[in-house]
């Protein structure tokens, strides 16, 4: 299909002897919010890590803006405009909030624009601005998630990968985080989201894929998937179409 910003076709990758992704095909169009659902160990995080080059692609293609990026090193991929909000935030806990944001802009050299973007993040997350000089490790869970998102935005990405932004947060915070994700999407950033919380993710996504043991087993628009009874089966790993 034409006009995709990021696409994976028949991607196989894994760690050592184990093949986690066994031919994954995903397509993300510009401006979309797409989510990848699946149970534990289905290969969600590995998909993100593969896109970012942290896990090597063994076969298949990853294409970004019409250009193959599989085989590139992570910093080169980041430089092209893909960043990730990692699972569990993984902030630089001993650095200040501001330093974390500055690290996010590591590849950029336009000082004035960086300063402007830091202000932009502070506008979006006012709590962070109050705590600009505080160590990231001392923030609450919700604030940490905000900072992780802000840090990823500092690279000025075209595509933002998010790994389980709801993990470990109280429901009210999860709601706030998802509101922010919609806001970011509203600014034209393409979002590829990995989630376990299917209902919530589908409520903000345009389309979704369901992954089970390294293969895509379902794909549809968000509304259609919400109504699809197979969704829960896929979650429990019982969808027949995947049998060995």
């Amino acid at each position: 299909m034409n006009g995709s910003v990021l696409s994976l076709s028949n991607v196989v990758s894994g760690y050592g002897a184990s093949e986690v992704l066994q031919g994954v095909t995903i397509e993300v169009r510009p401006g979309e919010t797409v989510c990848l659902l699946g149970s534990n160990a289905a290969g969600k995080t590995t998909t993100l890590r593969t896109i970012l080059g942290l896990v090597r692609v063994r076969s298949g293609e990853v294409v970004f803006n019409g250009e193959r990026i599989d085989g590139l090193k992570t910093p080169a991929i980041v430089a092209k405009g893909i960043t990730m909000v990692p699972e569990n935030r993984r902030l630089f806990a001993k650095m200040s909030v501001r330093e974390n944001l500055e690290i996010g802009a590591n590849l950029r050299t336009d000082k004035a624009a960086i300063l402007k973007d830091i202000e932009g993040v502070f506008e979006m997350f006012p709590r962070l601005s109050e705590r600009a000089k505080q160590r990231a490790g001392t923030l609450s869970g919700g604030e940490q998630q905000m900072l992780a998102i802000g840090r990823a935005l500092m690279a000025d990405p075209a595509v933002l990968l998010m790994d389980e932004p709801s993990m470990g947060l109280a429901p009210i915070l999860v709601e706030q985080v998802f509101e922010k994700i919609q806001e970011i999407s509203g600014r034209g950033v393409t979002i590829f989201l990995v989630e376990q919380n299917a209902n919530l993710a589908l409520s903000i996504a345009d389309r979704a894929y369901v992954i089970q043991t390294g293969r895509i087993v379902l794909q549809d628009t968000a509304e259609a998937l919400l109504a699809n009874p197979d969704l829960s089966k896929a979650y429990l790993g019982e969808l027949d179409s995947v049998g060995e």
Partner: protein
Amino acid sequence: MRRLPRYVRVGLLGGFIIIYLTAVGMIAAFHERNIITGVVQFSVVLMTLVYMAAGYLAARAPKGGSPPLRPTRDALIAGAVGGVLVGVFVILMTVLADAGYTPRDMFIAITPATLDILSFDQGTYLSLPVQAVLGAVLGLAGGYLSTATPNVRSTVTRAISATLIGALGAPLFSVMMAGLGIPSRWLFRSEGLTIVGTVFVVGVTLLLRWYLLRAGGVRNALDRVPGVTRKNVNVVTWAVVGVVLAVLPWIVNTFVSDVLGTVGLYILLGLGLNIVVGYAGLLDLGYVAFYAVGAYSVAVLTARSSFLVGADVTNLAPDGFMNFWVAIPLTIVIAVIIGVLIGAPVLRLRGDYLAIVTLGFGEIIRTLVLSDWLKPYLGGPQGITEIPSVPVGPFNARDPRILYYLILGFVLVSYFVSTRLKYARIGRAWAAMREDEDVAEGMGISVIKYKILAFVMGAAVGCLGGAFFAAKLSVANPGSFTLLVSINVLAVVVLGGMGSIPGVVVGSLVLVGLPELLREFGEFRLHIYGIILVAIMVFKPEGLFPDARRARELRGEATVKEPVPALAGAAE
């Protein structure tokens, strides 16, 4: 069995420490060392301090416990118990010796003369009451200190420390005073303080203390003086430091200048390793490799006997292949190349594995220079001799004082460069990489590039240390580049506080400077060194002069939390 009361345990521990000091020979050796000449020897001071510490601990609340009900009694008993233990030890040793079992077979320091020190020449059997009474009295004093107000306590400890520093530093101080033309006979005699000197030191300490207490601290005292702002206090402080550094070699003797030069070399090495270990978090146990590379490069390039000059050693060239100053940039280039060679293969390794492999690289370099294969070029076990001194115009750089200035210059440059690196983009990238390699990579930081950069910069600074070392000794041979050097440099960095630049300076002064100056402690140098290191790791694990961010990493997070209305109920 019921646990013994705390004061008894503390007392027994104190007694045991004294017995230990005796057995390793410290008591005997330090009996020769005057503190207050003719009155108090260092051996006695050691015993005093142990008993006082026992009393102090006994009278104080244990960690997480409640304070003792009768601190005075506890302190007294603790001291006495320690004393009794020491007395019993003396008697036991004498009895054993009389019965034909000689403890000296195992502990050569346990001689009748040593036992006489413990019994204060009162004879074997009186040693028990003598030590018991001594322990009790000193324990009581220690106990009093721990129950006294903080002001009294710190005043007394300061007076004691001042006396000890004055006495132990007596040889150095009298040399310095002689250099300044101030008579010192009234203050110091036979490596100790005179009685007048002791009164003087204690008096000055007390006066200063009294004045500062009244003024409410140094800061306030200075603020009181008109026209003094914090900024010009800083300027004055730096000016004073500058002047002291500049004139130091002329008020101490050449030996001390030489020691200062060695300290400077270790500062150079420490600054280099600090980049690798402190900034980038790569544990390098083979740092000596770059030290050796620096020394051998300068040796080969400047020595008259170098193969580059010609195999015919009898036909000595007037100078080596090239001048030291031309050789230095070349040496840096060579070190950088070797830095890349060592850095590249270990990039994929982390933590322990990296440490082991770098350890191997250090040994490989040493084995290479020792090898027959490279003997025609690097001289094998003899190494390279006749390395000329550093040419500095009309001055003779064999003079430790001139060398001191040269090394000082390079230390200042490296210090400056280190500081700039730390706060530049590259320093931040290293910090991010140290915390989380994967995420750093995800932020676009090329971990490979920054690791190599760390190795290269560390190599460049470290090789300077080696270069001066070769020029200073005029020899480079494999014996100088052992694993111990790597460990010493690492200890300098860790002791000062990883990632901290002033920490490297402090670490070098403490670990390299002090043992050189306290030579008389002779065989106990490494012993004391070990005690200091353990004590620092226990009480100040972040180092003497920690980098703020590193300190946080070690102390763990103290979460600052205030109620967060909008984000109430935050998980985790």
